[in-house]
Structures are given as C-alpha cells and as structure tokens.
C-alpha cells in the first residue's frame, strides 16, 4: 500500500510535540523535587495533619502523570499540565484562605514561592503565555497576601518574592519562546511541504499530460488517418495497430514508471551513454560521503540522461576531434553533470538561438524537472554544458534565532525589568533592614557584578559573544554574587542569597546567547558557594533549596532550552528533507496517476468504440468518415486551442463526416479573449461550417495585432468575425 499523504496530516507537528513533551517532563521533575523537599522539611508540628498528604497529592500526582508525556498525545499532556497549574493555584488560594481564617501556619512559608516557576511553566504548556501570566499574577498576589496575613511586611521577604517573580517571568519567556520557536519550525516545514507538494503535483500532471498527448499524437492520430487514407490491402495491419493502440490506452495509467532511480544506477547509465556516444571521452565521477545517497526521482534521472546525451551528440558533431570530458557530481542534495570539450567553441552572441544546437531538449528537459542547464562557450575556448538539479529549495530554510524579531523585545523587557527590580531590591534590603554596612556593601557588590556582567555581554542584539567575553561576564558576575552572598548573609540570613539568583539571571543570558557550557560552569560555582553558605550558616533545607534551587532552575531552563532547540532544529532540518522528498514523490506520482487515468478514460470514451471497430476488421463505409471526424477532433484540441468548444466541436465533426476538410487554428497566443467572446466566435465559425458541404474550411483565431478576432476561410471567400 503506498503511503498517502492526507490533507489532515499535512502539517508536521513533530517539533512542537517533542518540545512540549520534553518540557512537561522537566516541569514534572521540578514539581516532584519540590514536593519531596516540602514533605521532608516540614516538621509534624508545622502543619495540620492532612496537609502533607494534600501537598504531596497536589504536586506529585499530576507530576507522575506528566512523566508519561513521551507516550501521550499533545492534548493529554496539555490537560495534565493544566491540572498541575490549576491545582497549584488552588493550593495557594487555599493557603491564603487558611491563613486568613486563622488555621495555624508558621511563618516558614518559604516553599510556596518556589513553585511559582513550576506552576507558570505548567500553565504555559497548557494554555500559552496568556494563561501563564494569569497564573503568575494570581500566585504572586496570593503569596503576598499570605505573607501579610502571617507575619506582616518584611523587606527581606519582599526581595525574595521579587526574585521569585522575576524567575518565573524569565522561565515564562524562555519556555514560551522555545515553544513558539518549535511551532514556527513546524509551520515553516509544513509550508515548504505544501509548496513542494503543489509543485510536484503540477509537474506530475504536466509530465503525465505530455505523455498522454504523445500517445495521442503518435499512435491514435496515425491509426485514424491510416483508416481513411489507405489501401484495402493494409486493412489487416491497420486493424492490428488499432488493437495495440487500444492496449496502450487501457494501460496508460501504469505507463508512467515512477520508481526512484538509485544513484549508482543513474551514474552507470550516464557513463554508459558517454561511452556509447563518445568512447574516448573522459568520465569523472565524484560522490560525497560513503552513505547510500538518496535515490533520484525517475523523471529527474530521465531528464539528465536525455540532456547529457544531447550535449554529447552536439559536442561530437561540432567539435569532432576535440577531447571531451563528462563530470558527474552527486551528493546528498544535488546532482551536477558537466559536459565539456576543448573544441572550436562558438560565440553564443553571434549565432541565432535556434542554430546553437542546444535544442529545447537540453534546457527544456532540465527545467521541466526543476533543474537548470547552462552553456558556456567562446571561440577557441571550447564548450561547457552544465546540468544541475537540487533536491530541495534551500531558500526557505528558517533560521533561528537571528530572524526571530520578538525575542529581543521581550528579552529586553525582562532584562530591563530585572535590572530595575534588582536595583530596587538591593536598595530596599539595605535601607529597609537598617542600613547595616554589610548589607549595603553586599548589595553594591551584587549590583556591580550584575551590571558589569551585562555590560561585558552586551544586550543590543542576540549575536553569539566571543568565548572570552562570555567567560569574563560569567566570572565577574559569579564572583560578585558569591562575595555579596557571603557578606550579606550575616545581615539577612538566607535572603542574602538573592545575589546568587541575580548572578544566575546574567548567566542565563550567557546561555541563551549561545554559550551554554560557560554558563553551566559558572552555575556550578554559584551552587557550590550557595551550599557552603547554607551549610556554614545552618540554613534549613527549604531555605537551602530556595537559595540554590532558584539559580539552578533559572540557568537550567535557559541552558536546556537553548541546547534542546538547537538539537530539535537540526533534527527537524534532516527530517524535513526526507519529509519533503517523500511528499514530492507521493504527490507527483499521485498526480500523474490521476491525470493519466483521467486522460485514459477520456480517450477510451472518445476513440475506444471506433478503434474497436477498426480492430475488428469489419469496416463499414461510415467508419471512414467517422475516423476522419475523430482525427480532426483530436487535432483540434491541440492545434485549435480555445476554439475547441461545444458548438464548434459538433459542427466540425458533422462537417467532417460530410467530407469537408476542417482546419481550426488558435494563433492568438498571448491575447486575452473573454469567454463570451470565444463562445461567439465558435458559434460564428460553426454557423459557417453548417453552410459548407464540400472542400475545406479554415477557422482561425488571429494573432494579437489583427483588427478582427477571427477569420473563416472557405473556397469561395474570406470572412472576418464581427461582433
């Protein structure tokens, strides 16, 4: 069973599906991690009995389902993510309600903030950026209210919350852009696929049409003419021919052999041709790589074969004694065949086009299959004919991220917001907690490191920074963050770890800009420092996780998104060419087959019965005029062009049966004539025909420079068409 491409699955959603599944699993992992942390860190006294179970359920259950994403459909994954997002949001609201109504909760509610990113990412996958933003706002508001309800205002916590908000925002942008990028990739491939399909279909239809037309002209017309023109002694032979022609018509659908040609067979055929026509010719075959090369479509192989043969024949004829060479280059996408000789050459500018000997068979063949042919020659310099064909149109390759105009804008927004926020936070935390020297210094250092890192990195455009520059930015920022944390921890406790997150944001920038591994290395430094700070200062596990987890998540998501996107893009490009090639082959052979079938049916109904009578050998007198009429009708469809339409077709057939020789010519090529005018002309000529009983009548659509549209000429006069 051949692979049919249905209109419903014409879109290639592979990339987006892969991306969504991957992201969902990552989100699930984060959720599980956090659930585990809470469950471990919460002392029994901290929360009411069923609380831990509820927590676990809210996060862990959807997360477990999400781990199955690689085997689930897009919709299912989205539903699971939506559940996770909604549940998390409800949890937050529930906490808030609980706090307001007085159900006892300690002020150790660090942890809900850490899940902001998880919830936002889940909402993003489920419903896109809009829903993600909504969930971010709701959660943030809840957390603030919760905090107020529990313990009142606290600058330190404000900073922490600010960091959480920014982290979530960054994750949102990153993942959102990542998903959008995959969707754009898919869309670009689908578009290319549609275009390729259209082109292949029309090529297939045209090839089939030409093939059918050739059959008509070759055999059908000849047979019909023979009946009317020949001696009775030839009747038997003509009857056999009619039988053969009928057989060809019935088999027309299967006549176009579309099996792809293996490259080795293709090269073998070309070298064989060269040896046959010009045995002394040097043949040079260059193929790239060891992998078996994708087979060529049959029509392409045919085009090359015919064009090469013609070029060689020309060379032998015009430059007989010269030495000639054929070069065949075939690699994954392209085939280039060059036929060159060092003969007398000619000046293409001197010679009338049609005397060049580069007949339509060379240029026309290559063009018909989507390739090109060119000739270079100069007197005394020999002649080179170059035939080339490319597997796919490379001009619609989508390049990311340089062409994605949206990313810079939202990135700039985030970056600006981040800078402003961090500065604000730094000021607040220093001033708000009493302007302790340590805290001011820590804030100053953290900010300095952050701005310096950004300055070194540059944020004008998304070009990939030089390695040295990236390392410098990373080192500056990381060391500043670590130092600031160590200094500030004495003043604020674990909240001083905000500096680590600030540094992490800059590292995320490094990763996105194309230096993921440098970011990871620096991240290791941040994490190590954070661990040291946490251990030596006795942070609770939850606080440690918050301090270290946020930088981890921020840089982790950035690095993963960048790497994954690059991988997906490469994989998509590869899949795309195979997809396009298959699409092309399928579309072409489907279109060919359909066209041939239609033409065959049409021919059968038109000439079948008559040919059967010819084949039978029982020729009645009416058969002769019938054959003449049919021959004329088929001829008219080709040469008569737009004149071959209802009132005229019947009138011509009837006239031919009466013995009139009817000739219809469409010589108005390029002239636009409205349908109603054509109908009027046809009716007019038909009228003339009805009045003609013998001799010949020639009806002609006149060339564009005539006063009249058409003329009708019979033995006794000329008539011009009047409206």
């Amino acid at each position, binding site marked *: 069973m051949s692979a049919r491409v249905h209109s419903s699955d014409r879109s290639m959603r592979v990339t987006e599906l892969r991306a969504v599944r991957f992201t969902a699993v990552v989100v699930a992992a984060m959720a599980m991690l956090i659930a585990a942390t809470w469950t471990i860190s919460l002392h029994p006294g901290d929360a009411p009995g069923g609380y831990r179970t509820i927590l676990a359920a809210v996060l862990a259950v959807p997360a477990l389902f999400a781990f199955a994403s690689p085997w689930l459909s897009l919709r299912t994954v989205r539903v699971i993510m939506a559940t996770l997002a909604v549940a998390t949001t409800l949890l937050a609201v529930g906490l808030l309600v609980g706090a307001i109504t007085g159900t006892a909760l300690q002020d150790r509610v660090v942890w809900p903030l850490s899940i902001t990113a998880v919830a936002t990412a889940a909402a993003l996958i489920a419903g896109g950026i809009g829903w993600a933003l909504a969930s971010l706002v709701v959660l943030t508001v809840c957390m603030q209210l919760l905090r107020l309800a529990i313990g009142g205002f606290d600058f330190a916590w404000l900073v922490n919350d600010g960091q959480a908000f920014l982290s979530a925002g960054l994750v949102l942008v990153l993942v959102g852009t990542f998903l959008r990028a995959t969707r754009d990739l898919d869309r670009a491939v689908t578009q290319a696929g549609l275009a390729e399909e259209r082109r292949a279909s029309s090529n297939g239809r045209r090839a089939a*049409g030409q093939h059918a*037309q*050739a059959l008509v*002209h*070759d*055999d059908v*017309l*000849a047979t019909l*003419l*023979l009946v009317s*023109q*020949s*001696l009775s002694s*030839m009747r038997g*032979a*003509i009857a056999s*021919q009619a039988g053969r022609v009928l057989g060809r018509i019935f088999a027309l659908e299967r006549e176009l052999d579309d099996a792809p040609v293996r490259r080795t067979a293709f090269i073998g055929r070309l070298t064989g041709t060269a040896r046959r026509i010009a045995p002394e010719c040097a043949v040079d075959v260059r193929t790239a790589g060891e992998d078996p090369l994708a087979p060529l479509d049959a029509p392409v192989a045919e085009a090359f074969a*015919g064009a090469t043969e*013609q070029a060689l024949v020309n060379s032998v004829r015009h430059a007989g004694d010269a030495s000639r060479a054929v070069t065949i280059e075939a690699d994954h996408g392209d085939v280039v065949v060059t036929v060159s000789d060092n003969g007398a050459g000619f000046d*293409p*500018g*001197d*010679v*009338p*086009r*049609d005397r*060049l*000997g580069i*007949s*339509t*068979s060379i*240029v*026309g063949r290559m063009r018909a299959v989507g390739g090109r042919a*060119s*000739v270079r020659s100069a007197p005394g310099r020999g002649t080179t004919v170059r035939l080339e064909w490319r597997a796919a149109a490379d001009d619609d390759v989508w390049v990311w991220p340089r062409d994605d105009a949206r990313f810079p804008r939202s990135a700039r927004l985030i970056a600006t917001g981040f800078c402003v926020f961090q500065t604000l936070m730094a000021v607040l935390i220093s001033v708000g907690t009493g302007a302790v020297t340590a805290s001011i210094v820590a804030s100053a250092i953290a900010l300095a490191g952050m701005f310096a890192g950004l300055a070194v990195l540059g944020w004008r455009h998304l070009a990939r920074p030089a390695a040295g520059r990236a390392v410098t930015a990373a080192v500056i920022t990381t060391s500043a963050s670590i130092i600031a944390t160590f200094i500030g921890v004495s003043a604020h406790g674990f909240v001083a770890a905000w500096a680590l997150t600030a540094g992490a944001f800059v590292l995320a920038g490094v990763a996105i800009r194309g230096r993921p591994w440098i970011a990871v290395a620096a991240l290791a430094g941040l994490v190590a420092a954070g661990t040291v700070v946490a251990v030596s200062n006795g942070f609770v596990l939850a606080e440690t996780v918050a301090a270290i987890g946020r930088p981890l998540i921020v840089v982790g998501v950035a690095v993963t998104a960048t790497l994954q996107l690059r991988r997906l893009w490469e994989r998509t490009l590869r899949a795309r060419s195979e997809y396009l090639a298959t699409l092309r082959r399928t579309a072409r052979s489907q279109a060919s087959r359909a066209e041939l079938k239609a033409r065959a049916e*049409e021919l059968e109904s038109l000439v079948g019965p008559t040919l059967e009578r010819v084949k039978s050998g029982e020729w009645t007198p009416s058969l002769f005029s019938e054959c*003449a009429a049919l021959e*004329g009708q088929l*001829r008219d*469809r*080709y*040469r008569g*062009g737009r004149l*071959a339409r209802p009132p005229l077709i019947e009138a011509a057939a009837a006239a031919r049966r009466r013995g009139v*020789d009817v*000739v219809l*010519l469409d*010589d108005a*090529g390029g002239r636009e004539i409205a349908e109603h005018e054509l109908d009027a002309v046809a009716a007019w000529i038909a009228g003339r025909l009805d009045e003609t009983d013998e001799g010949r*009548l*020639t009806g*002609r659509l*006149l*060339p564009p*420079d*005539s006063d009249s549209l058409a*003329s009708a*000429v*019979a033995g006794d006069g*000329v008539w011009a068409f009047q409206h």
Partner: protein
Amino acid sequence: MGSARVVIVDDHDLVSIALGEMIRSRNDLEFVGRAHTVTEFRSKGIAADVAVLDLALGDDSDPADNVARLSAAGLRVMVLTSGENPYYIRRVTRTDAFGIVRKSAPSHEILDAIAQTARGEHVLTTEWAAALDADDDLRSAPLTNRERDVLRLYASGLGAKMVARQLSVSENTIDDHLRRIRRVYRDIDRPADTKVELYQRGLEDGFIPPPAPR
C-alpha cells in the same frame, strides 16, 4: 527528366507504407525506401532526391536538426505534421525545408507537395503561413503592409488564386511577395542571449501545450 526518388522518414511503419503506396501511383515520383530515424536513413545508404520527414519522430530528436542533416546529405526535405504545437512548426520554418504539409490533408495535396519539392519549388501551405504570421519576430521585420496582408490571407487558409483575387493582383506578384517574405524571415536577426533561454521562448511560442479541455 526522370522521376524523383523519394524516401520517407517516419517512426510509424504503416504510415510510411501507405504513403509509399500513394507515391507509387505517380509517374513523376519514385518511392525508394523508408527509415524510422534520420540516423537509420543515413546508415542504410539509400540514394534519394527528396525526403518526406515526419515532424515528430518519437526519438526526441530536434526536427530542425533532422532537416539540417537531410539537407546536408543533399536531399530536398518536405515535412509532414500531425498538427503539432506551433513551436515545433516554427522551428522547421526557419530551416531549409521546402514545405510543411498536414498529414490529414487530401492525398493529392500531399503528393503535389512532394512533387513541388522535387522540382525545387517551395510549397505554400496554411501551416507554414500561419506559423510565420503568428511569429512575434516578424513584427519588427521590414515587411510592407501588402506583404503582411498576403501572409495573413495565406495563414487564414486561402489558396494562391484566391489570395491574388482578394488583393486584385496577379499571381506572379504574389509569388514575388512570398519570395521576399521568405528571404526576410530567414535573415531576421533574432536576439540571442549568452544564456540559452529556449525554454522561456518555448513557453511564449506555445511549446507548453495548452491545458486539455474538459
């Protein structure tokens, strides 16, 4: 003067045989052989004066090429067409062929055309005139209005006598006009590109067949 020796080059055996039979019925013509392609004819070594050449030989050979090769071998060429697309016909009009005749024309017309070719006279047919008349290159050629009228009338299907009568001149005058038309046509300076854009030209000239009527 003896009868002219005629060879038929056509890829359909029956067509060649039938035509050969028709030629045998004339005194001034002698059927000497047939071949499927020009190459086959050359290899057979048949001696002939006139070649009747099928426009579409089915071997993807260029009709103009075929005419050139036959002419080079010393034969006068007459081309038979089934009603091909105008592009191929036009290619032949620019060669040394003496005429282009429809296969579906009445037998006596075909035979007369062969005889004319044998005598070295150009055969004037509607197909030939129509091909020239619709040729864009002729627009800017130095032809007089009268000459264009002559061509247009022939292209529309009138015969020699009728054209003369229509224009109220003698047939000799018409012949002069035709000779001049032929000469101008042959000498037209056709723009040639360094890159051979024959396909483009073929599109304009009707190389791409019109869509099949439904």
